[in-house]
């Protein structure tokens, strides 16, 4: 048995790992186009209309049509752009999204196979490391485009990163302290008796709100505010490079929902036989994604200073208080 580089809770043979990673990768890449359609359909329903229903039966082929259209377009690069960084930025965003999928547990070890990419002992830190890395993609995109709109969008996403990354980490810290582990598998197992959404409701709310900011989704879609910044950091992108930003947005939404489900909704836990575990996990993730879409259909975009004051004056104190109270309770009880 090959021992991976990091300290892990459980490791299989290399070929099983390869098969697992392919399955997770393909599974999520099948879900993402469906999510784009589901979002447009749901937003339609939220606005008393049908949403796309022309391409294929009830609009099911719409994602295919979108992808084909994007793939057929020119990948334009402005003359003022920095060619290498301009090309690397979208790849970086997608990379950081996909890599995070590795640690999301869809079930426990069954028949010698763990239902997750890898159970690293530093699970949460891994998630934060790579979700912060995706911001480099946005920043590089904005800076290397050589356009003022892109640059403004990138500046905003940098400000958003600073404001929300801290409270996001603090929001998860409560769960980490209760479980006594950073490994996502152990955290799910620790929720055997009660899901952490009950004792950690404040943490859950702070995490979700910070998650909206993290994924640049409404009401925190300032970096790509179309009414003022055209498309923010991706203004100058075209073709599949632009498409990869869209893909990354949904991927990150999936990842953040999966982390929230793992931390607060008991991950794969649910009634029924053991083979239902991955199904429960996906159901919980999809429910959270529905919440993402619901919020997008409801709230208007925040102003720049409102975003900042919410992040620093409300979210951070709340998350810190939550951590303090949890720390005291965990020690006392």
């Amino acid at each position: 048995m090959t021992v991976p580089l990091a300290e892990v809770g459980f490791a299989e043979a290399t070929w099983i790992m390869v098969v697992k990673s392919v399955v997770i990768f393909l599974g999520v890449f099948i879900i993402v186009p469906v999510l784009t359609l589901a979002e447009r359909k749901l937003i339609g329903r939220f606005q008393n209309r049908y949403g796309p229903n022309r391409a294929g039966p009830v609009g099911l082929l719409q994602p295919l049509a979108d992808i084909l259209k994007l793939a057929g377009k020119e990948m334009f690069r402005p003359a003022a752009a920095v060619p290498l960084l301009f090309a690397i930025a979208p790849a970086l965003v997608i990379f950081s999204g996909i890599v995070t999928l590795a640690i999301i547990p869809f079930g426990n070890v069954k028949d010698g196979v763990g239902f997750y990419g890898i159970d690293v002992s530093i699970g949460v830190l891994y998630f934060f490391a790579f979700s912060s890395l995706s911001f480099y993609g946005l920043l590089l995109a904005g800076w290397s485009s050589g356009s003022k709109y892109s640059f403004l969008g990138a500046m905003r996403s940098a400000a958003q990163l600073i404001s929300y990354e801290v409270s996001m980490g603090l929001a998860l810290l409560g769960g980490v302290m209760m479980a006594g582990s950073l490994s996502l598998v152990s955290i799910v197992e620790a929720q055997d008796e009660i899901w952490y959404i009950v004792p950690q409701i404040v943490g859950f709310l702070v995490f979700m709100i910070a998650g909206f900011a993290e994924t640049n989704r409404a009401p925190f879609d300032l970096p790509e505010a179309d009414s003022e910044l055209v498309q923010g950091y991706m203004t100058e992108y075209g073709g599949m490079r632009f498409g990869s930003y869209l893909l990354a947005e949904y991927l990150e939404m999936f990842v953040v929902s999966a982390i929230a489900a793992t931390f607060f909704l008991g991950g794969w836990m649910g009634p029924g036989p053991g083979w239902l575990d991955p199904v429960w996990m996906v159901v919980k993730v999809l429910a959270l994604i529905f919440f993402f879409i619901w919020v997008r259909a409801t709230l208007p975009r925040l102003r720049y200073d409102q975003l900042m004051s919410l992040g620093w004056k409300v979210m951070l104190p709340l998350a810190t208080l939550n951590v303090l109270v949890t720390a005291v309770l965990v020690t006392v009880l």
Partner: protein
Amino acid sequence: MEARLNTDKTDWEQFPYLDSADVISVQRGPEPGGAGGAYRAFGATLKGLRTTFARIIEGPVTIQYPEEKTPVYPRFRGRHKLHRFEDTGLEKCVGCSLCAAACPADCIRVVAQENDPANRVSAGERYAEVYEINLSRCIFCGYCEVACPFDAITMGHDYELSDYNRSDLIFTKEMLLAEPIDRTPLRREGE
């Protein structure tokens, strides 16, 4: 000035010339920010979420246009129709050209002809040998309908009149007499 609310922060001593009857006190909302602001924002967000979710329950109200058509009111002024008498099948139009005279867009052309008693086209002395409406000029005002002494021309309910060619929009008598291929749905009572 007693009726003023405590939330009103205007310093009324600055305006001694204002008559108290003219002063309209403004009730302002609570100041933004702070813990109270966050609490209110949270409540408002929940209210908003409920509002949007109620839209899902209501269901879509859009009309799937090419398959479903917007129903029109009975008095909707669409494409014109020429009429025949139901019993005899003779045309109601007698070629008097009053519609052409009334038309503000000057889009109706009528050429009258004496009826042959052996082979009558209309019930009157004369009939319209040519009756053309140029629908690319028509403004659908309905004056022709009002002007007609025999109710021979009325405004129908068809509104899908686009075509690829301007000359195809000149509707001849045969086209105006014929029933439209697709019937436009009529709005029902209360719809």
